[in-house]
C-alpha cells in the first residue's frame, strides 16, 4: 500500500469509532479525530484532541481509536493527543449535529455565550418537538459537554451540547 492508501484506510477505521458517552456520533463527527499521519515506516498515527480538559472519555477514546487501528491491521499504529488548536464545538460536522438531534440532544448553537451575559439564555430548539420555547435548568449536565434544558411546550427535559 502506498502512504495515501494507508492513510485513507487508517482514517476510515479510526473515524468509525463511536464516542463512548454519546455513541450515536463518531469521533470524526465530533471533530475529535483530527488527522491521520503516516510515519516513514508506514505506521499510521492518529491525532486526537480532547474536548473538555477534564472529559473522562478522553482516555477511553484514545484506547478505542488505537484498538480500531490495530484491528484494521496496523499493529504499529499510535495515537497522539494534540492540545492546539483547541477543540471547539464548531468542529462538529453537520452530519454529527443531525445525529445528535435525532438522538434527543440539542446540538450547540453556533454562537457562544458571552460570559458577561449573566442569567442570559441561549435560544435552544427542543430536539423532541422542535419548539423554541425552552428554558435552561442548569448550565452543567450529566457530562462536561452537556447542559440541562426543558421544553415548555412538550414539557420534555433534554440535554444541550454546550458551546465551547
Amino acid at each position: 500500500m502506498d502512504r495515501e492508501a494507508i492513510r485513507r484506510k487508517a482514517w476510515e477505521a479510526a473515524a468509525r469509532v463511536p464516542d463512548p458517552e454519546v455513541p450515536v456520533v463518531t469521533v470524526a463527527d465530533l471533530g475529535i479525530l483530527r488527522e491521520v499521519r503516516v510515519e516513514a515506516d508506514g505506521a499510521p498515527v492518529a491525532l486526537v484532541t480532547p474536548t473538555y480538559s477534564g472529559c473522562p472519555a478522553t482516555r477511553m477514546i484514545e484506547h478505542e481509536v488505537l484498538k480500531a487501528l490495530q484491528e484494521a491491521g496496523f499493529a504499529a499504529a499510535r495515537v497522539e493527543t494534540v492540545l492546539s488548536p483547541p477543540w471547539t464545538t464548531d468542529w462538529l460536522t453537520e452530519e454529527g449535529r443531525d445525529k445528535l438531534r435525532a438522538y434527543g440532544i440539542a446540538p450547540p448553537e453556533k454562537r457562544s455565550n458571552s460570559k458577561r451575559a449573566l442569567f442570559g439564555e441561549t435560544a435552544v430548539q427542543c430536539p423532541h418537538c422542535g419548539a423554541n420555547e425552552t428554558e435552561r435548568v442548569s448550565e452543567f449536565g450529566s457530562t462536561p459537554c452537556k447542559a440541562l434544558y426543558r421544553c415548555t411546550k412538550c414539557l420534555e427535559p433534554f440535554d444541550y451540547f454546550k458551546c465551547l
Partner: protein
Amino acid sequence: MVDKKSLFNYLLRLGDDQQILSQRLGEWCGHAPTLEEDLALANIALDLLGQARSLYTYAGEVEGLGRDEDQLAFLRYENDYVNALIVERPNGDFAHTITRQFFYSVFMDLLWNGLLKSSDETIRAIAAKAVKEVDYHVRHSAEWVIRLGQGTAESRERMVDALDEFAIYTGELFEMDALATEMAEAGVGVDLAALRPQWEAEVNNILTDAGLEMPKVNWMQTGGRSGEHTEHLGHILAELQYMQRTYPGMTW
C-alpha cells in the same frame, strides 16, 4: 533560554492550584443543595482536574526526571505543594464555596487570558482550552453571588461572612515573588500584580449587583507559594493521596 527548574516550579504552582481546588469541589459531590448544583460543582472540579493533568504532565516533561502526572499529584509532601492558600480553605457553607469560586475564577479568567500570549507553546495550548472553560465558572459563580446577595436575609448574611473570610486570601494570587517575576520577564508568565485592578473592578461590579461590598482589609494572608500551608492542606492530602500511599505505584 528559560531556566528549567523555574519553569517546572511555575507549572507546579498552576497545577497545584487547579488540583487542590478540584479536590475541594469534589467534596460537594452528593452533598450540594440541589442536584443541579451537585452536577455543576462536580463539572467545575472536573475541568480543573483536566487542567491540572495537562499542567503536571508538562511539568514532568520539563523536569526530565521521569515523573508523570500521577507522581506529581499524589507523591509529594505537604511542603512541596505550592498552591495559593485560598484553594485549600474548607468548603464551609454554599456561600463560602461560591465566594471562593467567584474570587478564584475571575482571577483565573484574567490569568489564562494573559497566558494565551505566553512564549511557551504548551502553556499557550493549555490556556487556550482553559480560557473557554473558565468562562462557565465565572458565570456560574457570579450568578450565585447575585442570587445569594439579593436572596433572603440569611443568604445575604452568609455571603457577608464568606466575603469576610476569603478577602484576606485574595492578595496572594497577585504576589510577584522572585519566581513569578522571572517567569513574567521571560514572557512565559504574566505580571500578576498588573491583573489586580481589573480583578477588583470585575469583582466589585458583581458585588454591586448583589448589593454586597468587598470588605476593607489591610492585611493579606500568604505562604502557599513557598510551601507554607494552613492546617487544612494536610487533611486534603491524606484523602487525596490515600490510595497511592497505601498501594505505591498502583494504576487503574
